């Protein structure tokens, strides 16, 4: 049986999600899969692709471009190739594809995926806008409405696929990691969409009361709204209060969790999690988001109760 199990050549943990293609090549060299001939071929094909992109940028009207522009074009090429490789079932499969397919075909495949991602992100943005919760936080609305719209206006995936353009001032709870471009927007919109649905589970008056208790000027602060609401919902669930009202006895919670560390707090939160989700009427993606956030929420809860 053991000979049927092929040991992975590439350790996924060693790959950089922000620089996937290059980190895969580096790992491939370390594993003895990418030799000098392959490196030379990839370098030559990269040069050819860069020349093609430069011609596209200038409309064929200029044989030269600024070096900084060339760097950006090449970053976009590598970003696009990375997108195609991330779609492979495993890093080993991605490396096999690098070794067997011309870089131009990986680039074209990456562009096709990027176009699909942009179309999906636009649709998700529209759906999120149509269901945007009544939050008065200026950064929440500013980023979700104006910031993301700005991205779609400025994004040029054919030439500068790696650029994000916007700063996304409003922070999501889960964060987006180190990705850029459409990958960042995709993750950010997913997080915003799910957090928006979670926030919509509560009456705006209850949420406002809670947030004013944290900071009178919460409407003008750069702060994530999901975290305090999720903590309060779990606080209610843990103390037997109505989680939907975001109102519970903090002293009762402190007594309930006395002596508990983050690990045991998280275990208690996990035990209550299904009932809480049923109470809130949370859909599947919201449930997954809440479940994924339990470890950090538990740490925060323990911190706040100290």
């Amino acid at each position, binding site marked *: 049986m053991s000979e049927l199990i092929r040991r992975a050549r590439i350790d996924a943990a060693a790959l950089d999600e922000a*620089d996937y293609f*290059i980190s895969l090549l*580096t790992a491939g060299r370390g594993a003895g899969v990418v030799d000098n001939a392959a490196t030379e071929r990839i370098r030559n094909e990269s*040069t050819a692709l*860069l020349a093609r992109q430069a011609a596209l940028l200038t409309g064929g009207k200029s*044989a*030269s471009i600024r070096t900084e522009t*060339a*760097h950006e074009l090449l970053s976009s090429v590598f970003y696009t190739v990375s997108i195609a490789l991330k779609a492979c079932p495993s890093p080993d499969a991605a490396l096999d594809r690098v070794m067997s397919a011309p870089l131009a075909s990986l680039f074209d495949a990456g562009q096709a995926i990027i176009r699909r991602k942009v179309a999906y992100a636009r649709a998700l943005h529209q759906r999120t806008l149509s269901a945007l919760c009544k939050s008065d936080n200026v950064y929440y609305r500013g980023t979700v409405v104006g910031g993301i719209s700005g991205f779609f206006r400025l994004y040029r995936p054919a030439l500068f696929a790696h650029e994000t353009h916007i700063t996304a001032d409003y922070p999501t709870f889960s964060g987006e990691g180190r990705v850029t471009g459409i990958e960042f927007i995709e993750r950010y919109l997913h997080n915003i969409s799910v957090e928006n649905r979670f926030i919509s589970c509560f009456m705006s008056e209850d949420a406002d009361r809670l947030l004013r208790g944290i900071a009178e000027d919460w409407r003008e602060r750069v702060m994530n709204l999901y975290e305090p609401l999720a903590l309060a919902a779990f606080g209610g669930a843990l103390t037997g209060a109505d989680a939907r009202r975001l109102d519970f006895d903090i002293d009762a919670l402190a007594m309930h969790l006395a002596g508990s560390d983050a690990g045991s707090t998280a275990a208690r939160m996990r035990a209550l999690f299904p009932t809480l989700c049923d109470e809130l009427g949370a859909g599947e993606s919201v449930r997954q988001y809440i479940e994924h956030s339990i470890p950090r929420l538990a740490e925060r809860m323990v911190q706040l109760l100290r």
Partner: protein
Amino acid sequence: MTECSGIMNTIINEAMGIDEQCRALLECNAVTREHGITLSAHDAAMLASARREALRNTGRVEFAGGTAERLVTEFAASPYITQDSFAAALAALTELFYLFKNETGDLISDEALIKYMRRTFDGECRGSIDVLASDALPELARRINRRRAREGLSAMEAADE
């Protein structure tokens, strides 16, 4: 990112080989001969090196080539160019070309810039590369940048809408 930058620098710095450039320049003799101008192998090597230096000095990279050859065939027909002055003049004109591609924000095509350089070199500059560098080309850059400022404002207004 260090690996990526290293690969980028290697690709960008070796975009076109010197031998390839020399060959392309010498092929221009088929055209320049009609005007009594011929590039020697030494001239071609000097011009290829000057082109590389000019690209480095102006922070540019060229993939397809053709700029130096285009300058050679265009200026070989100038009444102010002689066999003796040709190679040195072309080296200076090459540097000016890339410099003013930068100064004009890459808003003018290679062909249009070369045509402008030849027209003004033969015209108001009366064959002086110094006057071309200090008057005619800066004037072109000013005109283009004024237009860019106007169009840039329009683009911003459209974005706000």
